[in-house]
């Protein structure tokens, strides 16, 4: 049997039971590798459950910094007997299986092409600890200790992390260090250390930060000036609102009075949450809600109101697998159409597509400017893969000279000076009218906001010309949005390319890796990452300049492609959809495989003609 050998390039997967305390030990493992200067990308694969069901933590170690899910497993840390059979199957041929051999297992439970590494974890814990909870928790640390020996992970980095985590809690610190060395010493003495896969100190992490998209988006909302947040718990977005709470407590409490420069309401449902956010937006505060697909469905009536009454509000949709309750703890990009056209009647909404936590921060902050400039709902379309997994990404940055763009707000002074105020009057051709905040002026600038049709001066009117006039202005406004949303980013191939590829959001890391791999295989692809809807005109140019363009998405129905054809007026005959939608994050392997097949079928090999 040929064992897998690799330095700084492998996948370790932990199979655990949820509620067993494994999550923090596994994250410790990932972080300590980062501290060795080696990029990692961990992913939680968890059930919609609190205790007792299987959960996995997959860590991809990759010195080059590829952070997409690779697929396949080189070392399985099999801590859950329930899932043993499937976990075993997932290991690559030549891989390794780390397991608890306190109880003997029959040979049928192993594979001849996988190296088993047994360690009596339960036995060690039972003899060392008397408290059952300690036995469980320290078992996790003990296996991290053993892995540090097997993979040559520097134990000092782990100890440093302990000392940061347990600052001032000496007893906890010591007991964790003890457990770590218990595992490490056993492994060094009894196991074949090191394995063929191992770590080596590198310098490829740089100043990057390690954080998750939900926290980053929450921080973006703080920096973007959100002062009202209304939300209703739903996986996978709950941690976003909770992170907003935590960041506000640190960053938004008035030092003199001790009072809060923010208001956060946990609504009774998604309807109330978006209602509160819209009420606050109407009254001039920057407000948002965070939700997932089912929440968007519930909020749709209100979204239509905000579109038609022209009220700024930000919605962060951390997408999960749909439809219906779908796959609550799995990832997809399947809410694009639901958000782009949310609500009955003719509606269109601005969408932003962050690729990673850094962009979750940036685009969420920007969403508040866009919402107030455009006076309309703006959606930040993130997903579970970005939202709930920690990613290595560019550090957050902020330009202190930046002032918020509060949009067209008619002031007391301008009203007093005799400005012609029509709430739905387009004064300069960009489709965006002026608004007043309630309470601005005693006799001027008051108006009645409604979801019913109205004329330019906000008076109720069912007259056809008034209605059409208003709807066309809304179209002009959407045209204006084109120039304000983030532009698509081009990733040009190094050699002239006949193929184009369009992708967005959490597909980004897998795509970047796939492009490199394809180039090595001689398949050159120009790629364009879409970051906003409505689409910039250059998207059309990009498609026109390639005979075939792959559109890579994580949904069944090619939702971005539908938008490209329907709203971007892009010729569908040039577009080839590559769709990955089983709930797991898309992999570079999948993209390479699919594009290679299509490219093969579309490459004309000249016939050899005998001379």
């Amino acid at each position, binding site marked *: 049997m040929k064992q897998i050998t690799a330095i700084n390039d492998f996948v370790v997967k932990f199979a655990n039971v949820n509620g067993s305390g494994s999550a923090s030990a596994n994250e410790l493992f990932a972080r300590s590798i980062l501290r060795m200067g080696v990029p990692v990308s961990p992913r939680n694969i968890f059930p919609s459950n609190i205790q007792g069901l299987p959960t996995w933590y997959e860590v991809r170690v990759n010195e080059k910094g590829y952070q997409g899910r690779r697929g396949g497993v080189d070392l399985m840390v099999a801590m859950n007997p329930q899932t043993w059979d499937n976990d075993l199957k997932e290991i690559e041929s030549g891989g390794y299986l780390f397991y608890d051999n306190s109880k003997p297992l029959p040979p049928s439970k192993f594979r001849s092409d996988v190296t088993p590494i047994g360690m009596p974890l339960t036995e060690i814990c039972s003899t060392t600890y008397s408290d059952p909870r300690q036995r469980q928790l320290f078992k996790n640390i003990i296996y991290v200790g053993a892995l540090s020996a097997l993979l040559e992970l520097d134990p000092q980095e782990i100890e440093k992390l302990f000392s940061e985590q347990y600052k001032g809690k000496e007893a906890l610190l010591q007991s964790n260090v003890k457990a770590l060395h218990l595992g490490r010493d056993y492994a060094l003495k009894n196991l074949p250390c090191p394995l063929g896969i191992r770590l080596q100190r590198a310098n490829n992490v740089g100043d990057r930060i390690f954080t998750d998209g939900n926290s980053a988006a929450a921080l973006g909302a703080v920096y973007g000036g959100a002062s009202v947040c209304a939300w209703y718990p739903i996986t996978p977005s709950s941690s976003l609102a909770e992170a907003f709470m935590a960041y506000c407590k640190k960053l938004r409490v008035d030092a003199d009075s001790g009072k809060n420069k923010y208001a956060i309401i946990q609504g009774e449902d998604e309807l109330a949450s978006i209602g509160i956010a819209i009420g606050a937006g109407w*009254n001039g505060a920057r407000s948002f809600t965070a939700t997932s697909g089912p929440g968007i469905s519930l909020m749709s009536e209100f979204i239509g109101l905000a579109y038609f009454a022209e009220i700024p509000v930000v919605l962060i949709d951390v997408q999960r697998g749909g439809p219906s309750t779908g796959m609550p703890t799995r990832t997809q990009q399947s809410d694009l159409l639901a958000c782009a056209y949310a609500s009955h009647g003719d509606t269109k909404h601005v969408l932003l597509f962050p690729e990673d936590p850094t962009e979750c921060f940036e685009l969420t902050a920007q969403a508040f400017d866009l919402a107030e400039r455009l006076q309309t709902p703006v959606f930040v379309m993130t997903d579970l893969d970005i939202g709930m997994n920690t990613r290595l990404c560019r550090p957050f940055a902020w330009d202190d000279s930046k002032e918020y763009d509060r949009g067209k707000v008619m002031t007391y002074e301008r009203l007093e000076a005799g400005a012609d105020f029509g709430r739905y009057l387009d004064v300069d051709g960009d489709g965006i009218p002026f608004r007043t905040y309630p309470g601005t002026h005693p006799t001027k600038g008051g108006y009645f906001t409604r979801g019913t049709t109205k004329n330019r001066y906000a008076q109720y009117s069912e007259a056809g010309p008034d209605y059409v006039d208003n709807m066309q202005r809304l179209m002009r406004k959407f045209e204006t949005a084109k120039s304000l949303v983030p532009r698509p980013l081009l990733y040009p191939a190094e050699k002239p390319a006949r193929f184009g590829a369009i992708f967005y959001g959490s597909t980004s890391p897998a795509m970047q890796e796939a492009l490199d791999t394809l180039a090595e295989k001689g398949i050159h692809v120009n790629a364009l990452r879409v970051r906003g809807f409505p689409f910039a005109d250059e998207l059309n140019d990009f498609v026109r300049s390639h005979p075939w363009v792959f559109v890579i998405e994580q949904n069944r129905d090619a939702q971005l492609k539908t938008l490209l054809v329907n709203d971007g007026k892009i010729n569908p005959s040039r577009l080839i959809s590559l769709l990955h939608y089983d709930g797991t994050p898309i992999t570079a392997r999948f993209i390479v495989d699919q594009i290679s097949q299509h490219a093969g079928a579309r490459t004309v090999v000249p016939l050899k003609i005998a001379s």
Partner: protein
Amino acid sequence: MTYLAKPKLHHPSLARNQAGYIRRDYEGKISTLCAGCGHDSISASLIQACWELDIQPHRVAKLSGIGCSSKTPDYFLGNSHGFNSVHGRMPSVLTGANLANRDLLYLGISGDGDSASIGIGQFIHCIRRGVNMVYIVENNGVYGLTKGQFSATATKGSKSKRGVLNPDEPVDLVGMALLLRATFVARAFSGDKKQLVPLIKAAIQHPGPSFIDVISPCVAFNNHEGSTKSYDYVRQHNAAVNRLDFIEDREEITADYAPGDVISIAQHDGSLLRLRKVAHDYDPTDRIRAMNYVQEHAAAGEIVTGLLYVSPEAADLHQYIKTVDTPLNQLGTRDLCPGSAALEKINATLR
């Protein structure tokens, strides 16, 4: 409805209030509701109350849901911002608006379809949260705009205009508001402005969630024999517990009443509520007894009206969540953005 616009010319002798406004300044567009609609009387009472309280009209925000009642904010306080939102969702929109600017006065206008059916959840939760507002339900027991279907407040056994008997138990909004600890709960009859105007004034002054259930007959669909929300029925079964003479702290108490007939309730903000007792055994500061009283009389077929409950210890959502005194919508970039130095520190914790 009437098509006759009132003349815009005002007689110079029209009385001005302390804020410098005449009563006409508190009016809105001409009502499009049916002639004799109870809702128009409520609008008139709101106008009267705001004028008497010297409220600056533009410092009021009027919010509503969908239905006949929810159309009315267009018919009073024409210089105030209004928001006719979606069906049953006024409470959430009002909550958000209130969070954004705590300095305005929030009037939530709703109906029985809006608040007792589709929006019952939002009605409950905004009261639970203690939003500082005046929440008025214009309660006629019927869906007027869709022509006469029963609403959730229609009494079991009451008869529709088409002669159908209502098979369902009614939702008692006053009972719910008491249960949910609204700190000001009243019931009134749109046909009795003398009772309604002081109640609205007291509700406006009350620094917490104020709820007024106003029985407001629908002349088109629910004013017939067999209805329990008709003018005649409500007049016959009205059991007022008190008469409110709202008195601000600056005014002296005049001695119109015999001792023992008057209850004075000091409010948290220093103002005084003075109530003339009608039912002598009624104490409007005892929430639990109020609930019993209302239920007992309801069982006897009586509609208890008046100020049913007021808590002198009222507080509001802003106090509970400790927001700054400056309205959130007036905070600028400097107040809200922690800046790059703080961000660098956060970056450092994420490595």
